């Protein structure tokens, strides 16, 4: 963990975060009590299998949705109680968001440079549009409409739009999903540069290469944060109800799904029941 974390307030923090989606067929519990902090100057990667709740978590961190329960604070605003207008201002001025589908992140009728410039203007930046495009390798496509760009280029343009105007928080939902390794590295470099400039960056990804380039890796499973990996160590997470998720490899040690918990000095030891041993 960077040394600055100890003195700088987190860009986003949540405790016991729950998100439930209701539909005609019933309820979907996307997040079941997440607690975490996102700090400025660091790139946080959220990983997990499909349906684990990554997109829901990133949508909430991007202040684009409200939690069903729990507390979520983004850049000092309590998302659960803030007014729609406050959240709108927050999104417009301080949060860059890259949606999972690149088409949701670009204006179809504006040239690449124009839309980066437009979004940057909303965040108070008068120039820097070309720099943002150059950071994702799109400076040569500045005067093209999105329809003239490939899928990967559109993805990178969406990242450039999110980075325009130096937002305080950048949330990117699988920003490298449609990119080759070289371009994925380019995008991650750009995100790391933004983080290095002091912004808090949160991305989700399935790509192991990307996961290990972040300052911090959070793994989600079944809507629960199962582990947190930093450059120093990997820790499992105990949620507010005392639950602890074991990695799948360790689960195989407990085929009956029963465990004996023993205190071991200043630690805890888990072992299968004797009948299994």
């Amino acid at each position, binding site marked *: 963990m960077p040394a600055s974390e100890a003195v700088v307030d987190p860009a986003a923090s949540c405790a016991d975060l729950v998100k439930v989606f209701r*539909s*005609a067929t019933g309820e979907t519990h996307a997040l079941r009590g997440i607690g975490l902090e996102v700090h400025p100057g660091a790139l946080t990667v959220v990983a997990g299998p499909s349906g684990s709740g990554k997109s829901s978590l990133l949508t909430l961190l991007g202040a*684009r949705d409200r939690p069903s329960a729990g507390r979520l604070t983004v850049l000092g605003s309590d998302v659960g109680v803030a007014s729609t207008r406050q959240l709108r201002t927050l999104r*417009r001025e301080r949060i860059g968001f890259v949606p999972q589908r690149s*088409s949701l992140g670009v204006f179809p009728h504006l*040239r690449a440079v124009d839309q980066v410039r*437009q979004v940057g203007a909303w965040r108070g930046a008068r120039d820097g*549009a070309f720099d943002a495009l150059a950071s994702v390798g799109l400076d040569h496509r*500045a005067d093209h409409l999105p329809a003239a760009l490939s*899928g990967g280029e559109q993805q990178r343009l969406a990242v450039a739009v999110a980075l325009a105007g130096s937002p305080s928080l950048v949330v990117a939902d699988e920003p490298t999903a449609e990119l080759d390794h070289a371009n994925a590295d380019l995008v991650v470099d750009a995100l790391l540069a933004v983080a290095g400039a002091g912004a808090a960056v949160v991305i989700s990804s399935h790509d192991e290469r990307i996961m290990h380039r972040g300052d911090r890796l959070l793994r989600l499973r079944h809507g629960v944060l199962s582990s947190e990996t930093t450059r120093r160590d990997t820790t499992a997470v105990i949620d507010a109800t005392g639950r602890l998720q074991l990695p799948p490899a360790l689960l195989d040690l407990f085929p009956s799904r029963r465990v004996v918990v023993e205190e071991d000095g200043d630690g805890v030891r888990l072992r299968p029941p004797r009948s299994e041993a």
Partner: protein
Amino acid sequence: MTRAPARVRRGALWRAAPLRLPRTPGWLLLVLVAATLFVASVVAPPMFAATARATALAEGLRAVAGAPYGPESADLRATWDGVLLADGDALLMDRLDALRGYGAPVVTASGVAQNRTRRAVVQADGRTRPSEIWYRDGAVAALGGDEDADGVWLAADVAGDLGLEPGDRLRLGLVQTFLTQTPPTLARTTLAGTYETAPGSALPAALADDPDSDRWFVPFDPDDPTQQTPLAIAGRRAFDRLVVEAGEAPLYLADLAIEPGIDPDDAAAAVTQVQRLADDAFDSREPLYGALGATKPPGGAELDVLTGLPDIAFETDGTARTARDQVRPYAVAGQVLAAALLVAAWVLLGRSRRREQLLVSGLGLRPSRLAALAGLEALPVALLAVPLGLGLACLGVLTAGPPTEAGLVVARDDVVRAAVAAGVGLALVVGTAALSAVGTDSLARLSLLGRGRRAVPWTAALLAATAAVAVAVFTIDVTDRAEAPLTMALPVLVAGSVAVLVARAVAWLRSRRPARARPGGARWLATRRTGPVVREVTALTAVVAVGLGLFAYALTVHRGIDEGVTDKTAALAGAATTIEVAEDFRGGGSKGARTARLVTPPADDTSIVWRGAAALPPEFGAEPLMAVDPDSFAAVADWGASGELDAGRELLPQLDREAEGLPVLLAGETDLEAGDRGTLDFSSEFQIPFQVVGVVAAFPGSETETGGVTVVADALRLFRLVLPTVHPGRRGSTSDDAGGFTSEVWSRDSAHVLRRGLAGAGISTDGEVSTRAQAQVGGGLVASTWAAGYVLALGVVVLVLAVAGALVLALRLADRDSVSDVLLGRMGWRAAELARSRAWEVGYAVATAVLAAVLASGVLVLVPTIVDATATVPPLTRPRPGLVDVVVLAVVLVVTVLVAWLLGAWRARRRHPAEVLRAGV
């Protein structure tokens, strides 16, 4: 080669907004059509009302063109009976000249003192000839003389009898002709010249050619009013001197012809000015009053102003008001429809940009800014819609509005109205965009999973609304129903309900009986695809069904109103022309000859109709009674256009059959039925038993006189039963006899032809004439025909919308699930098969819509009428379908299906199996 760096544009979203729509021609066209229709729907009703007013005025003026000056003419005649001083004369002329809508005054003057004991004469050498001093502007000049010179012009024969040559002296004035010793008062003058008179006229041949000359004031011989007095024509100055010196009573007449193309506003202004002129002549505070009081010799003059323009203007306004009232419901319906189309177009456009809306909402753009962007985007369309809407409104009013020869002038008010309408349209777009943005901006919807939709039972709501409106409309009295605001909503609701029900029924049937198409074929694929896609199919079905249904309904309404007006006119007028003949058919001669004279048509294509009144006890009050000669009446009477009156014609022969009592036919509302018997009561003086041979809603001429029911009987059989005191064949019978019958001659020809025919038969022609055209105007029916034109125009607009909507939806239907087309292409499906499959999809929806449209229009035709704006005059007007409607609909359908088919095929063929499947842009 180095690429030039792209120029960064500030406010790119704002700059791009006005140019967005032109980049998508389909959406641009849809929004432009909607905006244009909205502007036109706002501008057209006032234009229609203005045209109706102008047309009514033009028809009113045409009807009285050439009539003698007075209440029957729109031209104006001002008269005064004294020689005004120069200043007073100039003031009066200025006032007359300033009247709006009238030409310059032309003054005629004449002495009018002669009567049966005092004659106007000229004398020379002891010889005397009748001749009245006369003046008209330009008359002396037309004879070749000098207007300002002294002397008079005499008819050549008069001058010859007096032995006068130009330059000879003569005297003119008044002489007593009966038992008096009063010496004549004669003024001295000279003979300025002579003129030849026109045959049968006292006017000089040089003046009689004027087409208006038969309306000039020319003095008549007091002993024989059919003959004009010879004229002694003088210039104005000479006339003013001579009438005073001769002790004549002068009459000055200023004739002002109304301008042929006068517009209603000028006519209204002229009426006001004329009234003011007449008032000022009697207002001692006004200079005109003083001018009229200063005459030579002293005594003052009285000014009279004669014109029928106020009556014509009043009738014009009444007709225009009736037309406007009749059109108002349709106009409001058109406006609501156009506004709904504009909003729907923008909603559809917004849906096509759903992803972009999510983007701007996610980026925190305020809804107000998004609405402003939408306004900026729609602004060019709104600006363009102003001239287009005005043009469309002009075109619609000219083609479907009241017949006008003057063309249509777009007034400043119309332009302002169009601009305001465009502004309102823009506001609708902005409001729609704002609501949509607010909806999208609610955070719960930003999450892609979203919340569950709240299901609205649209079908049940539509059916309930239809039922409620139907109950409300049909409980309104039929005379007020057509103008009720809810009435116009009923056809739309019925068409919509039928469309939804048919779409659901067809979907249910198809689910019960799967298509027997060959598996793997184009049709099979179409059934598989459209089966679960209820929404698009239902939308296409509903739009086409409602549009076509309303268009078909408009066709039937247009025909129904046209035929209904003809029927009502027949009930009001009875025949093309009728003329009252007071005494000519009454008694004289032998009994047989007298009776034959009562019913024998006096000329070709005529019939005699006797009118009287009788009560039908136990009902109180006299009802109109018509006694006719069935054979000639059947041939001459107007039987309308729809066949509603045919029942009366078929019953006519039964008026002469053997019955217990007088066979009568009853027209109107009565509790009596065919076969019923009763007693006709004639002013409690005598009664005649009758038997009803039939009851009809309306009969030719049955509405000429007011009454609940009109009794029609055979004239000969009736007159055999009436008391001799009221028998028109009685020797000495007159039209003034108490309880007597009056006679009319009905004709299929024009008034001119009828008069000529009657004159040829020795029948008087000075009775009151009524024509079919008069009945139409008086009954407010002509306004109905104009309103019918508006209905047809509205129907055409709905048709255009239906076709356009169908094409848009067909396109959406064809574009839906395009990914599967690419995949199927990769699996080996040929492009032609995919195109056929798409065409089948559209075809199913359109076929369902056609069925729904036919059913909807059928229902609307069969329900009680809601379109009769003049229901007080029977028979009731109702929509009437015709073969032409079916043909027109068939053509429209074929074209729509063909175009939709081609569109579907074209879109399907455009997809290439190698297309990159991208879920993005």
